[in-house]
C-alpha cells in the first residue's frame, strides 16, 4: 500500500474519530443506530418466531413438507428428496372395517414406515413413542372403547391379524389430518400388501413425508411443484389451518407496518441531521481545499467518513437490537411453550445494508456537493455552495422506497405507505404554510411580531421543521396511543374461552343426547350447525376444472369437497359485506369473500354443487367476511334453508372444554361412536403463542419507533439551533434582556409545537383508523381527544428545546456565542 493511501486512511480515521468525539455525528449516528436497531430487532424476532412456528407447523404435519396423492406416489418425488438428502417416509391412509370378536367398527387406517413421524412425536399410553412394527397395531382410545379390546389382544383388519401393542394418546399430525374422521388404527406399511385392502376402488390417500434443512426442503418444493400430476398436491400446514395462517399473517403485517414506521422516521431524522452536518462542514472542506486537497479527494474523504459512520452504527445498532430482543424474550420466556430457535445474522446484515443505503441516499448528495465549496471561503465566510437539495430528496425518496419495498415485500403496500407519507408531508407543508400565512395577517405586537418574523424568515426550513416535527409526533401517537388499542382489539378476537374442540358427524337425531351430556356435565349446550358435503361441479353452467385457475390454492379448493351449511348466522366473526341477507325460502348461496375472489365468484353467479348425487343450483346472493381466528365453525359456502334442508346432512359443533372436564370427550364418543371430536387446543395454543410473541415484539418495535420519533424531533429542532443562538447573542449584545429573548423563543416554539401537534394528532387519528380498518381489519373508533392531547404534547416537546437554549444562553457570554 502506498504511503499516500495509508496517510489518507489515517487522516480519514482520525477526522472520523475526532468528529465522533466532538459530537459532530451525534444526531446522525443516533438516527442511524435506531434505524438499524429497529430493523434488525424486528428482523431477528420475526425470523425466530417464524422458525419456531414453522417448526410447530412441521410438527402439525409430522414433516417439513408433505406430498399427498390419491394414487401411489411416483418414485421421482422420493428420488428428488434423496438428491436433497431429505429424510422421507411414505404413508397411506384409508377407511376400513376393523373387528375384534363380535365387535366391528369403521376406522381410519394409517399405514406408516418405521421413520414416522419425521417431526414431532407419537405419544403412546405406555410412554413409548415408536411407530408400529410389522404385525403390530396401535389404536386410539375410541377404537379400544368401541371394540372393547385390550393391549396384547389381536384385532382383524382385511386379511391381517395384528396384535395391539399400545394405545395412541397423541398423533402429531392428528389436527392436520381432517380426513381421519373415524377412530384410528395405525399399522406398519410393510403389512399393507398382505392385507388385501388396497384393491380397486379403495379410497386410499398416499402421503410422502419429508424433513431436512430448510434450504433443502425449499429446493425440493421448487423442484417438485412443477412436476405435480393430477391428484397430487403439496400440503402446507399453514394453509390447512386458516386460523393459524391468519394469526401469523396478521402478526407479520403488524410487525412490518411498525418497522416501516421506524424506518421512515429514522430516515427523516437522517435527512435533517445530514443537512445540519453538511452546513457545519463548509469550513473544514474550504480549509482542506486551500491546503491542496482536490475535489475528488474531499469526496473520497466524505464518502469514507460515511462508510465509517455506517459501520459504527451497524455495530452499535446490531448490538442494541440483539440485546433488546434477547431481553424481551427473557422477559416473556415463561409465556412461551419452548425457547425460540436462534436468529441468523441475515436480519442484521440486511438492516445494516439498508442503513447504508439510507445514509448514502439522505446524506450522500449533500456531503458530495460539499466538495465544491470554494477555497476562497477561508477568506470570505459568506461563501457557500449550492447544495443539491433536489438530489438529496430524490435519492432519499428512492432509498426509502427501496427500504419500504424490502420491509413490506409488496410493491402495492410500499407504494401506499411511501406515497401516503409523501402526500402527508406535502399536505402538511401546505397546511402549515396556510396557517402561518393566516397568522401573519393578524396585527401582532412586540415579541409576538418578532417571533413570527423570525419564523417566516426561512419559510422552507420552517416548513421542513414543521413537517418533521409533525411526522415524529404522528409516529409517536400512532404507536403509543394506538398500539395498545389495536393489540386489545386483536386479542379480543380470540376470546380466552375460544372453542378448543370440534365435533363432526353428529346426526340430527343425536342432538338431544348430545345436549343432555353437556347438561349433565354442568356445561351449556353448544351451538349445533348443519353440515353437508358437496362437490362444486358447475360455475355459471360451465364445468369447474382446476386447470382453469393459475393459483395452486385455487386449484386445490376447486377440487376439494366443500363443507356446506344452511341458515345465516351473523356474528362478529362472520359478517355479510356485500349483498342482501339470504331468504330462507328462496334458493341462494352466501360465499366467503376471499374464496370468492380466489375462485372468481361474483354476486349473481350460478353455482352448482353435487350433494350425494343431487345437483343443487342457486345464485350467489351475498358475500361474507369470516374471521377464521374465532375458532368457531365457519363455512366457505352457506345455502338458504330451503335449498339444503331436505338433503342428507350431519351436524357440526364447537365448544370450549376446560382442562378439568376433558373426560367428557370419551363419554360422548362412547355414547355416540360415530362422532368425531377434534381437539384444536394445540392449534389454539399456537395462535396464542403467535399473539404473545407478536405483541411483545411489537412493544419492542414501538420502543424503537418512539426513539426514532424523538430523534426526528431532536434533529428537527436542532436544524437552526446555532443560528438562533447567534441571533440571541446579537440581540443581547444590542441590549435585549434575556426575558425578552426567552419570550420570543417561547412564542416561536410553542406556535410551532402547537401547529405540529394539531396536524400530527389529526393525522394519527386518521392513520390509526385506516390501519385498523383497512390493513388489520379490526374495528376502530376515531379518537377526538388525540388531536387535543397532541397539541399540548407538541408544545411541551418543542418547549424543551427552548429550555435547553435558554440554559446555554444564560451560561455563555454574547462574545463567545458570536465567536462560535
Amino acid at each position, binding site marked *: 500500500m502506498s504511503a499516500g493511501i495509508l*496517510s489518507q486512511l489515517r487522516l480519514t480515521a482520525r477526522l472520523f474519530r475526532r468528529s465522533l468525539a466532538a459530537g459532530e455525528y451525534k444526531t446522525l449516528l443516533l438516527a442511524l443506530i435506531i434505524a438499524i436497531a429497529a430493523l434488525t430487532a424486528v428482523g431477528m424476532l420475526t425470523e425466530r418466531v417464524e422458525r419456531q412456528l414453522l417448526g410447530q407447523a412441521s410438527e402439525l404435519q409430522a414433516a417439513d413438507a408433505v406430498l399427498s396423492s390419491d394414487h401411489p406416489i411416483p418414485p421421482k418425488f422420493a428420488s428428488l428428496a434423496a438428491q436433497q438428502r431429505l429424510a422421507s417416509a411414505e404413508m397411506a391412509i384409508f377407511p376400513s372395517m376393523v373387528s375384534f370378536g363380535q365387535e366391528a367398527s369403521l376406522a381410519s387406517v394409517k399405514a406408516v414406515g418405521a421413520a414416522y413421524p419425521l417431526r414431532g412425536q407419537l405419544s403412546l399410553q405406555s410412554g413409548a413413542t415408536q411407530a408400529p412394527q410389522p404385525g403390530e397395531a396401535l389404536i386410539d382410545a375410541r377404537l379400544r372403547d368401541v371394540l372393547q379390546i385390550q393391549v396384547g389382544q389381536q384385532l382383524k383388519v382385511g386379511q391381517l391379524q395384528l396384535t395391539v401393542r399400545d394405545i395412541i394418546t397423541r398423533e402429531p399430525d392428528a389436527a392436520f389430518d381432517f380426513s381421519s374422521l373415524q377412530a384410528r388404527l395405525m399399522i406398519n406399511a410393510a403389512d399393507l400388501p398382505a392385507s388385501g385392502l388396497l384393491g380397486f376402488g379403495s379410497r386410499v390417500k398416499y402421503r410422502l413425508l419429508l424433513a431436512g434443512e430448510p434450504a433443502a426442503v425449499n429446493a425440493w418444493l421448487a423442484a417438485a411443484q412443477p412436476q405435480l400430476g393430477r391428484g397430487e398436491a403439496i400440503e402446507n400446514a399453514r394453509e390447512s389451518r386458516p386460523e393459524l395462517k391468519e394469526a401469523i399473517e396478521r402478526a407479520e403485517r403488524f410487525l412490518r407496518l411498525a418497522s416501516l414506521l421506524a424506518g421512515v422516521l429514522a430516515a427523516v431524522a437522517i435527512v435533517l441531521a445530514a443537512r445540519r452536518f453538511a452546513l457545519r462542514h463548509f469550513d473544514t472542506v474550504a480549509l482542506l481545499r486551500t491546503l491542496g486537497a482536490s*475535489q475528488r479527494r474531499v469526496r473520497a474523504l466524505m464518502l469514507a467518513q460515511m462508510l465509517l459512520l455506517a459501520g459504527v452504527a451497524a455495530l452499535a445498532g446490531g448490538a442494541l437490537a440483539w440485546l433488546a430482543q434477547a431481553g424481551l424474550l427473557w422477559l416473556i420466556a415463561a409465556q412461551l411453550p419452548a425457547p425460540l430457535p436462534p436468529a441468523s445474522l441475515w436480519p442484521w446484515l440486511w438492516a445494516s445494508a439498508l442503513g447504508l443505503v439510507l445514509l448514502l441516499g439522505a446524506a450522500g448528495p449533500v456531503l458530495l456537493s460539499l466538495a465544491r465549496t470554494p477555497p476562497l471561503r477561508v477568506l470570505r465566510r459568506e461563501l457557500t455552495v449550492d447544495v443539491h437539495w433536489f438530489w438529496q430528496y430524490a435519492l432519499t425518496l428512492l432509498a426509502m422506497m427501496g427500504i419500504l419495498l424490502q420491509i413490506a415485500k409488496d410493491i402495492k403496500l410500499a407504494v401506499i405507505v411511501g406515497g401516503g407519507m409523501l402526500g402527508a408531508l406535502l399536505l402538511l407543508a401546505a397546511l402549515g404554510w396556510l396557517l402561518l400565512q393566516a397568522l401573519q395577517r393578524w396585527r401582532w405586537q412586540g415579541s409576538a411580531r418578532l417571533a413570527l418574523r423570525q419564523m417566516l424568515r426561512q419559510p422552507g426550513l420552517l416548513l421542513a421543521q414543521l413537517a418533521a416535527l409533525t411526522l415524529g409526533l404522528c409516529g409517536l401517537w400512532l404507536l403509543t396511543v394506538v398500539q395498545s388499542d389495536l393489540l386489545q382489539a386483536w386479542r379480543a378476537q380470540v376470546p380466552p374461552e375460544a372453542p378448543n374442540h370440534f365435533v363432526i358427524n353428529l346426526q340430527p337425531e343425536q342432538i338431544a343426547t348430545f345436549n343432555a351430556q353437556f347438561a349433565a356435565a354442568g356445561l351449556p349446550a353448544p351451538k349445533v350447525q348443519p353440515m353437508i358435503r358437496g362437490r362444486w361441479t358447475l360455475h355459471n353452467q360451465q364445468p369447474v376444472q382446476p386447470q382453469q385457475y393459475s393459483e395452486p390454492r385455487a386449484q386445490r379448493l376447486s377440487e376439494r369437497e366443500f363443507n356446506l351449511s344452511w341458515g345465516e348466522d351473523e356474528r362478529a366473526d362472520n359478517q355479510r359485506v356485500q349483498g342482501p341477507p339470504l331468504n330462507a325460502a328462496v334458493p341462494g348461496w352466501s360465499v366467503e369473500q376471499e374464496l370468492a375472489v380466489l375462485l372468481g365468484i361474483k354476486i349473481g353467479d350460478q353455482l352448482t354443487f353435487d350433494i350425494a348425487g343431487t345437483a343443487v343450483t342457486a345464485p350467489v346472493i351475498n358475500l361474507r367476511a369470516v374471521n377464521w381466528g374465532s375458532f368457531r365453525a365457519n363455512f366457505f359456502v352457506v345455502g338458504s334453508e330451503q335449498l339444503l334442508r331436505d338433503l342428507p346432512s350431519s351436524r357440526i359443533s364447537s365448544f370450549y372444554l376446560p382442562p378439568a372436564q376433558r373426560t367428557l370427550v370419551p363419554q360422548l364418543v362412547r355414547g355416540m361412536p360415530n362422532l368425531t371430536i377434534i381437539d384444536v387446543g394445540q392449534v389454539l395454543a399456537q395462535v396464542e403463542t403467535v399473539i404473545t410473541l407478536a405483541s411483545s415484539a411489537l412493544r419492542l418495535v414501538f420502543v424503537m419507533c418512539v426513539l426514532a420519533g424523538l430523534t426526528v424531533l431532536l434533529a428537527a429542532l436542532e436544524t437552526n439551533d446555532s443560528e438562533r443562538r447567534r441571533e440571541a447573542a446579537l440581540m443581547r449584545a444590542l441590549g435585549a434582556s434575556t426575558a425578552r429573548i426567552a419570550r420570543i423563543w417561547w412564542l416561536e416554539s410553542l406556535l410551532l409545537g402547537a401547529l405540529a401537534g394539531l396536524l400530527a394528532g389529526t393525522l394519527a387519528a386518521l392513520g390509526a383508523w385506516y390501519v385498523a380498518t383497512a390493513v388489520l381489519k379490526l374495528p376502530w373508533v376515531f379518537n377526538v381527544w388525540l388531536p387535543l392531547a397532541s397539541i399540548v404534547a407538541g408544545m411541551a416537546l418543542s418547549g424543551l428545546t427552548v429550555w435547553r437554549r435558554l440554559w446555554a444562553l444564560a451560561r455563555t457570554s454574547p462574545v463567545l456565542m458570536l465567536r462560535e
Partner: protein
Amino acid sequence: MQARQLGKTVSSEGEKLTILHEISFSVPTGASLAVVGRSGSGKSSLLALLAGLDTPSVGEVILAGAALQTLDEDGRAAVRGRCAGFVFQSFQLLPELTALENVMLPLELAGVRGAEAQALQWLERVELGHRLHHLPRQLSGGEQQRVALARAFAPGPQILFADEPTGSLDSATGAVVADLLFALNREMGTTLVLVTHDDTLAQRCSHQLRLQAGQMIDWQVPAQTAALEQAA
C-alpha cells in the same frame, strides 16, 4: 511569483464592479511582500488571486513556475498543496482536531511519511511542545496562531500567504507571532506574501504594495533590487 495585468470584476445587483485594476509586479524567491491598504481596498482579493483561491477576470499569476489561469480548480489546489502555506486572521484550525493533528493535516494531505514526527518538531519549534493534544478551543488566540504557523511551515512551502496574521491578537501577542513568522520565514527561505493594515509590520517586508480602491498606488522595493531591476 509574478502578477501580470491582474484585474478582478464582480457583478453586484446587475452592476459591474471592478475591485482590482491591472496590477503587475513580481517578487523574487525568498523575498517578502507586504500588501497594505485600508479596509475594502482589495488586499484580501489580491491575496486570493495570488494564491489561486480565486480566479482573475483579466491578467495572469505565475506561482512557483505555474501559470494559475491555465489550471482548473483541482490543478490550482495541487499547486497550493505542493508549494503554498497559509496563515489566516481567524486561524482556521479544525476545531475537532488537536494542535498536533492540525499541523499533521497538510503533511498527510501531501502523503508525507513521518507526518507526526515532523508536526511534533514544528510544534516544539513554535514552543507549543507542551500543548500537543489540546483542542483549538483550549488554546489562547496567540497559541492558536502559533499552531497555524507550524501548520503553514511544516510542509516546507515555497511561498507563505498570510492574511492579517496578527489581526485577531492583542499588540503584545501580535508582536510575538509576527517575530516568529519573520524568523521562520528567514530560516526557511520562504517567499512571504503578507496582507496587513499595520504599517510597522509592513515595514519589515522587503517589498511593499499599497492598494487604494483596487488600484496599486505605491510599489516599494529595496534599493538593491530596484537597481538590479533598472539595470535589467
